[in-house]
Structures are given as structure tokens and as C-alpha cells.
């Protein structure tokens, strides 16, 4: 299994490269589910060790609130608030530190918002499931959209995926399952960015 990263700015492809860095939380979440066990401890994006029992959520990373499957931009009110969450789905940051498999979050996440240094998170969707016996391949895509309305330019140097890994107690816990350091992208005021991971298998 592997992932491929494509980033578009204003609909132009600016990065197209294999993703490098599934983090330790990903196999840990899988193993916990395989065993239905609480004996695996995983650090949440806050750096807190969590060791909950089997979970109803494993790698849930659509925008929450029931509207994540199809991204809806520009929605106001509570639905819009759901899309603006910054702890679930594709996330972006501004740090160039090399990836360590033990990373549990982006090093310097750019906050969702409209203020100085902030970029509006417009939601993450999971879509495009395909599989074919002929080519022995299968894949799906995870797409996040971001817009800079902060009034100034902002540099993006890292991207990743935050996924909800459990909800056994009714309280979601979020884990960083993938992080990539990228060539710096300067996103000017008014510009938008699409970050898409394609997860694929081939037997």
C-alpha cells in the first residue's frame, strides 16, 4: 500500500509526488482494531497517550457533521463550522523539520481561520474508490481544500492527515496518521489550495 500526494494552487498542480510518511499511529490503530484490545497506546495529536479499547472509529477523517463526503465550500452557520475543523482530515502547517515515524502531529499547524497567519479549512472528503481485478489495483482519495483570506501571504511547508481513531467513550480522539514535508508553497491572500492523497494497493 502506498500514498501519492497531489497539491493544486488555484487549480494548477504545484506538487505531485509519492507520499513518504505514514506515521506510527497508522499501524498502531490497525493493530488495535485487529486485536480489539486496549493494550496498545497511541499518542493523540495533543501528545497525550491514549489506550482506549476497540473503537467504532478507526481512521475517520471526513469533515464531521454529516457533510464530509462531498465538500461544500462557502457554507455558513453550523454546517460551515463543521467544515472549518482543524483536527480532523487533511491539515497543513509551516514547519520543515524532517519526518520522524514517531511524529504525532504536524510540527507547526496553521490554524483554521481568517486572521493573520491563519488559513480557512474548507473541509475534507473521502471519495473516488476504485478497484479492478484486471490490473490488481485499488485506490481511493482524500481531498482537503483551504483558502487564504487572512490579508497576507502564508507559506505552507508540511501537510498531513488527522484521523479520528476512536469514540468508545463518546469523546473523539484524533491521531496523525500521515505527515509529509513539502517544497514551500506561498499562498497569497485570496488564493485557495487543494491537497489530495491517493491511497492505493496493488497485489
Amino acid at each position, binding site marked *: 500500500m502506498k500514498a501519492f500526494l497531489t497539491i493544486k494552487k488555484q487549480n494548477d498542480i504545484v506538487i505531485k509526488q509519492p507520499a513518504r510518511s505514514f506515521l506510527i499511529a497508522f*499501524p*498502531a490503530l490497525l493493530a488495535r482494531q485487529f486485536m480489539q484490545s486496549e493494550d496498545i497506546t497511541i499518542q493523540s495529536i495533543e501528545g497525550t497517550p491514549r489506550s482506549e479499547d476497540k473503537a467504532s*472509529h478507526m481512521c*475517520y477523517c471526513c469533515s464531521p457533521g454529516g457533510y464530509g463526503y462531498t465538500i461544500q465550500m462557502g457554507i455558513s452557520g453550523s454546517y460551515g463550522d463543521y467544515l472549518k475543523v482543524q483536527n480532523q482530515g487533511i491539515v497543513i502547517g509551516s514547519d520543515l523539520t524532517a519526518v520522524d515515524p*514517531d511524529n504525532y502531529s504536524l510540527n507547526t499547524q496553521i490554524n483554521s481561520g481568517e486572521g493573520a497567519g491563519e488559513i480557512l479549512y474548507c473541509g475534507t472528503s473521502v471519495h473516488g474508490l476504485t478497484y479492478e*481485478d484486471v490490473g*490488481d489495483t485499488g485506490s481511493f482519495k482524500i481531498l482537503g481544500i483551504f483558502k487564504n483570506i487572512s490579508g497576507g501571504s502564508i507559506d505552507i511547508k508540511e501537510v498531513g492527515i488527522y484521523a479520528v481513531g476512536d469514540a468508545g467513550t463518546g469523546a473523539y480522539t484524533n491521531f496523525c496518521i500521515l505527515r509529509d514535508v513539502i517544497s514551500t508553497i506561498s499562498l497569497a491572500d485570496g488564493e485557495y489550495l487543494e491537497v489530495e492523497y491517493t491511497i492505493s494497493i496493488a497485489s
Partner: protein
Amino acid sequence: MKSKDSVIGSVITTDKVRPKQVEHEGEVLLEMVYTVSDKSGKIKTQKTELGHSFLQNFIIALFGFFARYHCPDDDLVDTGGTSRTGSPTYSTSGPAYSDEVFDCNAPSTNDDFGVLIGTDDTAVDIADYALGAKIIEGSGSGQMNYGSHSTVSPVSDVGNTYSYAGITRTISNNSGASITVKEVGLVWSSYWDTSATRYFLLLREVLGSPISVADGEILTVTIRVKCFC
């Protein structure tokens, strides 16, 4: 919380069969560790192979668990070859509210799910839904006794190039004769489409070289989901 994998436990023989070089930056592979021990627990052989055979069932289910509430119904093929139309919403919110996402922790003597072994070496096809020739539970001719599972705790290496975690199972040969193992699978127990339990094959690996397990010996199969970065 986890350990750094600087030392692999002592073994009598260890060899990497395929691929020969670790050049898999960015990939998630299956590191399969096969250990044969005698009744006293003394290790006779240990072999490690890198595999990659995530199946169609796996990518469909994984998509579902990434999308969660927003996943349309899709078809998984159970180990009996029947297509089951369902979704992870049913799987995780069904009548038992089972939370059994990817439950592979079968108890001892259960050969319906968990880590299973077989004797067929037909090449892996992404649409495989069952082992080619599963070794069934028992002590009769050609049968083996499936043990319980245990956790492979999360590990990363000192050089920061990989991490892994996984599942392991011991399987004993008390059949009275040697048995040659050629394939390994991981089967998930689930409510996917109904309150009836379904079994879905997620992974299947054909061994690079078969393993002979003599009467009285124990085969331990470890599946590490290994992420290279």
C-alpha cells in the same frame, strides 16, 4: 508506550526472502515473520518476508472506515464467496453496536477468522476472498490446532526509517505428520450488511518458500503492518 526496534530477538536462522532490499520509502508493507518452535519453545527456524498483498476487501473496508458515516454501500466478498452489500456504519452501529472494526482476534481453535494458514501457493489475486486451501482446526491428518492471538506493539527504529505494529498467532501441528504451509491470510469478523457475522479476507500472502512444520512443532505467524518513511 512503545519500544525502539534496535535488536531483534535471538534466532537460529533468519533470512530475508523478498524483496531483498529495503527500498520502500513511503510504502506500507506486510512484514511476515514465521517462527517454528518445538514443544519446549526452542526456536528451530525463523524467517522474515516482506509482502504487500492487501486485497480488494481491504481497500474497500479501509475506504469505508476513512469515510465512516459518508461511505456509500459497497460489496465485500465473504470467505464463502458471497458478495455482501453493506457499509461500516452497519458494521459499527449494528444491532450489537459491536465496534468490531477489523476484528481479527479469534479465540483458540477458531479457524473462521484471524490469522489463518493454508497449503495452496496459487499467486495472489487482488480479488481473493479466501485462502486457496485452508488448513482446518483439528488434530487429524492435515489439520493443525489454532491458538490465540497476541498484539505486536507499536515499534519504530532508531534510524527513524520505519514503524510497525500488528498481530501474531501460534498454530500447532498435532496431526502425527509433517505439514507444509504455503499461504497465510488475515480474516476479519464483521457485521457488514446484517446482524449475521460475516468473515472477510483482508490480506493473503503466498510464502516465498514453503515452511514445513513437523508433528509436535509450533508455527508462530506474525503480521507486522510496516510503514517505511
